Every structure is written in C-alpha cells, then in structure tokens.
C-alpha cells in the first residue's frame, strides 16, 4: 500500500473516557477504552468502511479523525499535517476540506432555521463568495443532491427522513470538501429510501472524487459502497482488507460471525449459522489477551494470555488473530 499518498493517516490513536461517575473524587481510576491504539490510512478518492457493533468505538474514531474531540494519544495526519498539533485558526481552515454526515437527520439540522440559513452558513463562515452569489450556489447544491429549490424557504420538520438526509449531505458537500466522515448515514432510514441515499453517496463520490470514512453497523451497507473495510471490536481493529477480501476470504472469527449473523432475504434453511455466545463485554474492564476470546468459538489458552499481532494475509489484508488460518475455515452458512 502506498502509505505516502494517503489523504488521511491514523497512527496509534487512543481515546479513553473516564468511567467514574464521581467527577470530583474517584476521577482517573477507571477508563472506558473507547478507541485503543488503532492504525489505518485512507487514500484520496477511496471509501473506507469502519464496521462494528454498538460500543466498539467506531463513532468515537469518526469524531477523532475530524478532531471534534481530543485524543488521549496518537496522531491523525490529514493532508500531511497532524490535526492535533494545529492551532485554532489553522484547524478552522483545514476543516473546510473535511465534513461529517450524522446518523439522525432529525437532530442534526437546527429545527428553528430555514433550510436556506442552514445551507448558506458555510459560505458565509468561510467567506467563500459574495452574498449575491449565494442563492445561485444553493440552487446548484440542491440540484446535486436531488432536491427542488423551493425547499430553501421551509423548515426541517416539513421533510421526511430521506429528504432531511439529502439536506444534511448538501450541507456537508457545500464547500467541496476532500474528505467526509459518514457516521451511519442510512441507519435511521426506511429500506426503500436507504437505497436512494446510498446511490446518492456513490454518485457524489464519483462526481467530486470524494474520500469517505464510512461508519456503519451494517455489513451489507458497507459492502455496497466501500473499497476497503476495517472491522472493529471493543476499541481495536481486528481485521482489515479490501471489500472483496473481507467478504469472501475473511480470516477473523468475529468478522465471520458478523457475516453469518446477517439475516438474508432468503427463506432456505441455513445449514450452520455461526452464533456467538454472550454479548460485547464492558469497555472498562476489557478481557485479557485477545479481546474477543471470551466469545470466540476457536479460542484457546494462548488467546487469553497475549494480544494477537497483525497476521499478514495479503498486501492489503490482515487479521489480528493467532488462529487466522483456522478462522478462515469457519463455516459461515
């Protein structure tokens, strides 16, 4: 992988949240290990998927790479500069080229502002163009996301979930950013609308050569849009590879269990579904060794003792599993 022309590079990134409820006293004793030493890079024009179940740290990662929250340690190199060493003004300028789309379009749009005000704000804040040009820019912007110009005078509550998400996407691409974090952008939408939004994101990516960090709990959704995928579990990336590698030659038991658990729209009885025991343990007291070992169908004593290294499977594919060869043989269905 040509690391040097990566648009975004994440190095040894960690984020621990204090887990004590007593803010005054017991502070600093226990931590939620939300993101625990992760590394990845995204090339320009690439869609990189981050997939995992709730609480695995994927949204925290999304916020860290935009420096919406400060890390415990580590660096995020965006466009050759470490975001965490930038001062306020340089960060503000940098943010023009990075944007985010949230899961819930009902809470991410200000209910008191007309769509015009919401969408014009980025142009004003970043002094992009004259006031007189804004209207024309907004018209073009709306056309790009498939909305009519008459939406400008309306309020968010007048729109359906899918239309709101189109508005949120319009806001994100208004300043022609290079990089967008999409945090579960279709999870709150109905099936028939979800497909429309996924198609829109794919079109925008082609049209503007956008780079995406696409965060989702849904493997089928990730598979449709992403070039490469990283699977997260309890704050760690456990497997990374091209979409094809992860879906057809996965070599981590957790990834295989996720693939197996997706209900397919096909009523033929499944021969053997790989159903995991238990649930994701607490991120405060993380299991020793491999964090997945208490739920893993093939774990042995070694897995509880030490942390598995990245086992290389191909130039683009690795798995953090001691038994990656056995894992690759686990039946999915």
């Amino acid at each position, binding site marked *: 992988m040509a690391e040097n022309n990566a648009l975004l590079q994440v190095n040894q990134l960690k984020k621990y949240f204090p887990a004590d409820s007593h803010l005054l006293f017991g502070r600093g004793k226990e931590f939620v290990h939300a993101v625990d030493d992760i590394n990845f890079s995204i090339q320009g024009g690439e869609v990189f998927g981050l997939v995992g*179940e*709730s609480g695995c740290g994927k949204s925290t990662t999304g916020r860290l790479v935009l420096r919406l929250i400060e890390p415990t340690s580590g660096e995020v190199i965006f466009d050759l500069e470490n975001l965490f060493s930038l001062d306020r003004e340089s960060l503000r300028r940098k943010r023009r080229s990075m944007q985010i789309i949230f899961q819930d379009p009902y809470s991410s749009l200000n209910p008191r502002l007309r769509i015009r005000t919401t969408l014009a704000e980025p142009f004003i804040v970043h002094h992009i163009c004259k006031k007189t040009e804004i209207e024309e820019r907004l018209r073009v912007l709306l056309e790009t996301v498939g909305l009519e110009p008459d939406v400008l005078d309306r309020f968010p509550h007048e729109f*359906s979930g*899918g*239309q709101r998400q189109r508005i949120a996407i319009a806001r994100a691409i208004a300043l022609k950013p290079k990089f967008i974090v999409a945090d579960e952008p279709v999870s709150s939408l*109905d*099936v*028939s*609308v*979800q*497909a*429309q939004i*996924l*198609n829109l994101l*794919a079109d925008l990516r082609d049209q503007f050569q956008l780079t995406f960090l696409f965060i989702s*709990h*849904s*493997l*089928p*959704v990730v*598979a*449709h849009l992403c070039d490469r995928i990283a699977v997260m579990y309890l704050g760690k990336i456990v497997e990374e590879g091209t*979409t*094809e590698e992860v*879906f*057809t030659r996965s070599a981590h038991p957790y990834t295989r*269990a*996720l*693939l*197996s*658990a*997706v*209900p*397919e*729209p*096909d*009523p033929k009885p*499944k021969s053997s*579904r790989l*159903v*995991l025991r238990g*649930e*994701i343990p607490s991120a405060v007291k993380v299991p020793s060794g491999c964090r997945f070992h208490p739920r893993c169908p093939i774990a042995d004593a070694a897995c509880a003792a030490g942390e598995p290294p990245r086992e290389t499977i191909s130039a683009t594919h690795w798995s953090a599993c001691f038994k990656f060869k056995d894992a690759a043989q686990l039946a*999915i*269905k």
Partner: protein
Amino acid sequence: MNSDLLTVENLRSVFDTPEGTVRAVDDVSFKISARRTLGLVGESGCGKTVTALSILRLLQPPARIERGRILFHSRKLGGNFSPGKSAENSPSQAVELLSIPEREMRKVRGAEIAMVFQEPSTALDPVFTVGEQIAETVRAHSKVRRRDAWSQAIEAMEAVSIPDAPRRAREYPHQLSGGLRQRVMIAMALVCHPQLLIADEPTTALDVTVQAQILELLQSMRERFALSMLFISHDLGVIAAVADEVAVMYAGKIVEQSPVSEIFSNPRHPYTQGLLRSLPTIRPGTLPTRKLDAIPGTVPNLLALPPGCKFEPRCPVRLEECKGLDPPLYPVGEGHWARCVLCR
C-alpha cells in the same frame, strides 16, 4: 376444531387528527393457524404496529378501531377454562375480541396473547427487579402464592437461557444488557403459556450478533410451547428467517400475502419487488453490485393518500387506470394474493 387460531377480518383502525381522520390500518384481513408464524413486513408508518395493538385492544385515543372482526380461539373464555399448558384437547370456540368486555379481554391479554416490544429498555419498569415484574405477570392471571410466582419467574428465565437466573431475577433492568433485557421480555411474555405471541420488531434495537441469538431463541420457544406468532419487522432478512407466511403492508393496507418462499422467489406486487431489489445484500462468496435499485419517492402521507392505488405515484409499472382504481387483492397462486391490477 378450526385450525385458525386468530382470524382478523376487514380491520380498520383510525387516528382522529385535527386535519381529519387517518386510516392507519385499512381493510386488513389475515389468519394465523396453530403453530404457524405470520410475518408482517413494511416500512415505518405502514400500520404494522397499529395492527398488533388493535388485536390486543391497546390502542389509545386519538387512535381507535373503526370496524372489523377479530376472532380468537380462547382457552379461557367460553367456559372451557383449563389451567396450564395442556389445553390442546379441550374444545374451544372462537371469541370475537372486539365485542367482549374489557374485563374479559384482560384474561386474554398477557395470558393467551402476549406481546414483545421493540425496545426492552422502555417496556420494563426501571424501579422493580426483573424477577418481580415476571412474577407480577403470573399473579395477574392466576391465584398463586408470591413464592410460587417467583419460582415460575425463575423457571421462565431459565427457559429463555438467562445464565444464573436466580441472581439475575434480583437485578434491575438497567443492570442487564440489551440482549438479556429482551430475553427477560420474552420470559415475561411466555410465563403464562400464551397461544399467540405478537413480536413487534423484537430484534431491531439489538446488535446483529445478539439478534441472531434472539431469533434462535424465539424459534426454539415456538417449538417448545407450540406457539403461533405474529412477527412484525421492517427487515426482510429477519422475516425470511422466522415466518411461514408473509403479509407485506404499504400505507395501511396489505398489498401482498403469500407463503414465505413465494414472496422471495416470486414477488408479484411492484412494491414487494422494489423492496427486495433495493435491499443491500451480501451472500458469502459474492460481491454486491455497486448501484442499488432504489424505489423513487417516499411513503405517502396518510392524510393525503392517492385516490387510486396507494403505490401508484412510486410504481415503475403503473398504468393510466391505477390513478383512479384502488385494486382489491387478486389471487395469483396457492395462498398468494397481490393488490395490483397487473395481477388480475
């Protein structure tokens, strides 16, 4: 004895709003036979949950049932009460649930028809332990001593594979994970040995690996207690895994109904076809296509429904006559109906 446990006929449930009366469920009819599962599938606002609440007579104003009949083979009503689960042999007669007094309905609700909701964290009372809540259900339906109700609660928790049930029973809902809470909900629903379980999106709030566990559990409970189920979901994948028959709802109406294999291999209504095509799917060993086949437009506002076919504005194969004609369900095969003029 007729094998149809539940028969819903021409059910119409409405909401009285300042802008007018909205038909959330319109002319819905279906049957659920003993030990069978009917999957009710559709997008948000299509009337799935209102259908379920109508069966249990749990609709609150401004919602109400306007017309229809709901026939249910009750063990308790009609003078043939036999306690316990061995009611198989006692002849029972169908009771029309919409015409019995509330006092009678209470004997059915929870004891003979139970419900599991989507969000276990709001369906459980935060100030009582889960054991107390299950035991309370038992005591609401039979005269047993507190201690016996408690041991029945533990038994029910063990039946749904909650590890260390006697200890877990003394815990409060917030101390349990989402998956365990949903198991508690299922234990509570099954503790009185109902004949019919209504499961309303029971796995939607759960992670996919936990969802797989709960679906397995529901299947084994169904075998063990000879349950019939009305299983509501927006997820066609989940429906495929649990249902014997499927009814697809759109804008308050059933638009297609068929055995489960038919709906996936031979969908006849353009909405069903569109839903299946728009679904991002993965099959092991194959890569998904880049572009999804989306259904254009959005679900119509129930206050301003199109006069003809409700799906007409979004339909890729609409005819001129669809604008004015609201089609009935046409038979298209064995146990298979579709509400589309193309199926005439």
